């Protein structure tokens, strides 16, 4: 197992490690810290290894740096100190086959003037892929999020949940290995959110995607994740880690199980502790 070289695809046996350990890391955060230009310590030095195939969720009170950590992973910002590795290499190699990532924002951020297919095609177009070559990829990505009947619709004709699906299809169309999601379903109603969560689990499982997910919802975190990182603020740091070792792919049955409730209860306690002034070293 340890002989796996970086970038090698996961084995075909269907056996997947749930949390860290024996899988090669997709992302390694090595004592990375972030001090903002105004002197605020956004993140204390953080060490974190995200294994391939993991579904890792970052959760915590506001200001705990979970979005900052996600942006570091996406290389949208640079660490003030320490460094990150992607597939055991630096960021210059990211984008090559087997080392791609996609980012899904809190809002769908679709182009209002473009139809669903054109919106999904955008990343391929920006990568200068010919329209004819892009077409099957676009159709497949739209199919995977269940919007094949809405290919020629404009964003304003879609509901909030459907817009988010388009946004996810736009991320999937580049065939990413790593999916970074910053509270993607935060603005949706609970029913829609649950449905999208269930679909996301399937996409993650079928697509063998490594996913890093930021959320405020305890239920969402427990339902989706193989590992949950609870963060605390002032300065932003990892407070505790919870592993959710449950069979995959999960379905609505898991949501109704007593185990689910137990995980949620524990996570909720941890979050309360992480939000205490003593835990934060300052005011909440």
């Amino acid at each position, binding site marked *: 197992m340890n002989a796996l070289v970086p970038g090698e695809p996961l084995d075909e046996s269907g056996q997947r490690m749930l949390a860290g350990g024996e899988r090669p890391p997709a992302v390694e955060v090595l004592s990375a810290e972030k001090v903002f230009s105004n002197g605020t310590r956004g993140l204390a030095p953080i060490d974190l290894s995200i294994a391939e195939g993991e579904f890792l969720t970052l959760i915590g009170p506001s200001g705990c740096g979970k979005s900052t950590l996600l942006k570091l992973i*996406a290389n*949208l910002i640079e660490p003030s100190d320490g460094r990150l590795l992607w597939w055991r290499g630096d960021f210059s190699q990211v984008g090559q086959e087997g080392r791609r990532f996609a*980012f899904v*924002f809190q*809002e769908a*951020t679709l*182009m*209002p*003037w*473009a139809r669903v297919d054109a919106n999904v095609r*955008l*990343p391929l*177009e*920006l*990568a200068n892929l010919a329209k004819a070559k892009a077409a099957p990829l676009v159709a497949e990505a739209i199919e995977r999020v269940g919007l094949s009947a809405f290919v020629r619709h*404009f*964003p*304003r004709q879609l509901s909030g949940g459907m817009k988010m699906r388009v946004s996810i299809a736009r991320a999937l169309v580049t065939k990413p290995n790593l999916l970074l999601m910053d509270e993607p379903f935060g603005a949706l109603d609970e029913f829609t959110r649950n449905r999208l969560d269930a679909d996301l689990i399937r996409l993650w499982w079928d697509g063998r995607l490594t996913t890093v997910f930021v959320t405020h919802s305890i239920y969402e975190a427990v339902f989706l994740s193989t590992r949950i990182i609870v963060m605390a603020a002032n300065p932003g740091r990892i407070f505790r880690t919870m592993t959710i070792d449950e069979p995959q792919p999960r379905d609505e049955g898991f949501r109704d199980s007593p185990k689910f409730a137990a995980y949620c209860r524990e996570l909720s306690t941890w979050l309360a502790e992480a939000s205490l002034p003593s835990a934060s070293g300052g005011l909440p």
Partner: protein
Amino acid sequence: MKPLLQSETFVRIAAPLAVGITLFVLWEVGFRLASVPVYLFPKPSDIFASFVHNGPSLFRALLVTLRVTLQAFAAAVIIGTLIAFMFVQSRAIEVSLFPYAVLLQVTPVVAIAPLIIILVKNTQLSLTICATLVALFPIISNTTLGLRSVDPGLANYFRMNRASRLKTLIKLRIPGALPYFFGGLRISSGLALIGAVVAEFVAGTGGRSSGLAYEILDAGFTLDIPRMFAALFLITLTGVCLFAAMGVLSRLALANWHESEIRTET
């Protein structure tokens, strides 16, 4: 009867039309009863008679004015858009040049028209230049505003995908600027007509290449008030048509996505 009255399109056309017809009838009847002399203020029927009588010359004048207007409008759209593109390339360019663009807006065309008419030999060309100067500013300011008003989330997405400047311009900035650009077109089309008419007033050109402004001047000299009204009416009609045409263009381009052109079904 009911569904027709409830149809918004019908009401939108019928209501202003009814107001117009009522005003015309009141005007005709009132002026007839008060027997206002034609050389003071003509009745609609006098104006109509003048239309029939002076038809060919009025029509020729209309074509002249229309040509100046459309040429100036086209020039303003092209030049204004290019200047807007230049402005968004860098803040430094915009900051140093925008005050001069404002000069265009605040200088009355009547004040600079004589200068341009002296400087430029060809009268048609000088009229077009005057009208262009009047029509230019709304295009510059609206298009610049539009090109700058990029959805920050989308801009971020383009940056993350390492999109080139050109791709960002074509795929993001230009489509996003269209609603503002069409807003500029509506204002600018009317201003091009005003500019053309005002410049011609100043130039006072006669002969075969004279436009509607000269018709008005000439009618004033000869106290042919109905002809004056007929020319005035043609200018107004041209302006309305231009405005409507811009509305249609804007609807064609934006109907599917922009809030301003979306008809909500209720």
